[in-house]
């Protein structure tokens, strides 16, 4: 187990290093940052000054190493647009997005697991069809359009929840539903197929032969095995969630990391954009690492093979 964990950890670190370098290169190479910083109609001497002040005239490798070195010391630079410390800015917004991510995931699992289980126990029933229809619709609806519909129905017509801002718990309801429904379809499908496979297996037949009750078989024996792939999917979907938070937070003006990312990107605020892209990549790497370790711990075949 230790050898597997160390090997997996080394891979995660390597991925993190390469991703941070790529994110750095991509954002630097996609345009002349100095021109963007100097603003429209800047004279060429202004642009040269900007280049010198921000150290953009040095080789890319030197700039990258400099950035990594500062980052490791907790110095993410200063925001060009908000004129504040990037780390403080990000730290300030992270809890909002973390809360949104957790609530969305709870909503997604809260509708997918029961529906998926019931759909597998009663295939081709009306609830199975409802489950399929919900999954198909969830995959086809653009998430920002669904968010606007929610806003219109529950915020404007029924007036039961606020539609914009992040001051109270009520402000998180619509964003969590919008973002949760966006990541729910894969959970529904995976729970349903996992449960159907589990219910068709030999150990379930044994359990039935022993005379166990239907509920005990479904919940204690089958569900536990069907959930193993769901753990791995959760890590991946959390990554999607964090990406999707850019769109949803912007729609609802929810003051989290996604909204900050949107604002900094539209103002070409490179230090903030870079910090958020790197942070989200690292979170994703950490999540997939934990999912792999959990699965290796659950299933010896993974850590040996």
């Amino acid at each position: 187990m230790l050898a597997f964990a160390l090997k997996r950890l080394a891979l995660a670190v390597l991925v993190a290093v390469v991703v941070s370098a790529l994110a750095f290169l991509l954002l630097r190479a996609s345009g002349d940052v100095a021109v963007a910083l100097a603003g429209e109609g800047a004279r060429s001497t202004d642009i040269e000054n900007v280049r010198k002040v921000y150290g953009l005239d040095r080789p890319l490798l030197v700039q990258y190493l400099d950035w990594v070195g500062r980052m490791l010391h907790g110095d993410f630079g200063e925001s060009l647009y908000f004129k504040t410390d990037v780390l403080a800015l990000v730290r300030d917004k992270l809890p909002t997005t973390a809360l949104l991510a957790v609530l969305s995931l709870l909503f997604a699992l809260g509708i997918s697991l029961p529906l998926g289980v019931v759909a597998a126990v009663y295939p081709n029933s009306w609830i199975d069809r409802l489950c399929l229809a919900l999954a198909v619709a969830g995959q086809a609806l653009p998430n920002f359009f669904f968010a606007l519909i929610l806003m219109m129905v529950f915020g404007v017509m029924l007036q039961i929840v606020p539609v914009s801002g992040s001051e109270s718990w009520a402000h998180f309801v619509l964003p969590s539903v919008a973002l949760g429904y966006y990541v729910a379809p894969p959970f529904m499908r995976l729970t349903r197929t996992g449960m159907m496979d589990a219910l068709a297996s030999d150990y379930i037949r044994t359990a039935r032969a022993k005379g166990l009750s239907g509920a005990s078989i479904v919940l204690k024996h089958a569900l536990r095995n069907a959930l193993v792939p769901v753990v791995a999917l959760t890590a991946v979907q959390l990554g999607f969630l964090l990406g999707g938070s850019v769109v949803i937070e912007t729609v609802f003006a929810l003051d989290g990391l996604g909204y900050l990312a949107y604002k900094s990107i539209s103002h070409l605020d490179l230090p903030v954009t870079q910090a958020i892209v790197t942070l989200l990549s690292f979170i994703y790497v950490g999540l997939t690492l934990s999912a792999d370790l959990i699965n290796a711990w659950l299933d010896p075949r993974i850590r040996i093979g």
Partner: protein
Amino acid sequence: MADVAAIPIVEVVGPSRRVLLGRRVLAHRGLVAGAGLLALIILIAVTAPLIAPHDPYAQDLTRRLVPPIWSAKGTWTHVLGTDNLGRDYLSRLIYGARISLLIGLSVMLISGLIGTTLGLLAGYFGGRVDMIVTFTVTVRLAMPLILVALAVVATVGGSLIVVILVLGLLKWDRFAVVMRAATQQVRALEFVAAAECIGASTLRIIVGEVLPNVMPQLVVVATVEAASAVLLEAALSFLGLGVQPPLPSWGLMIAEAKIYMFFSFWLIALPGTALALLVLAINMVGDGIRDVATPGMRS
């Protein structure tokens, strides 16, 4: 040993494999409905100049926000009303189909070419090649797609071609993952070994033996990716960092109508529904192909 030639040859008279496949396709209601809907949208996009009642870019500031025909003040001149600049909404929706279809198709082709090549190489050669490809895919997956796309479009400047290139160059991961797994399975089959034995070149084995046998999986991923590219372009354009005005991108139309949403909800409901229908049609075709090509694998 029995004489092989003595065994009587029984002519099996029945429908050919092609006819059987055709029957399975027609029997699949979802596939037929999805393909019909998709064909209709393609037809609308291709014949846009013929069927659009107005010029989608022609502004008429005296006729702004005209409501659609089903409301009391609707007129037959603008069946689906006009937007905040007095442009005919139906014509803009019709031309918008061209943008979404173009994005879906081009992104699918670019990312499909990159991802399929990587997946075939990793699955066929295994070993070190597989390790490098798997690592590349892991790195790509760790980058938040929509953030990186937004940031690159913001620095380079938004346009149709930039959005296509950015999404095409970023979205190859699923092609690589699925093609790698499918190739590994086909690689182990006897006809590949047979082709190696008769001295066929590696390129010929990959293109001539492996590729045709992973085609069903490739087509299914291609539909999934085309649908997701359509949704991503809409999201980028909605955030103002995708296709730029005055192009009638459906996502951009929703963004432009957002401030009128509370009074004229149809302005966002129409392009939103158009997007959902297109994505639904592509997904239904993809699911249908998966069911028909791999019977008994329904999930």
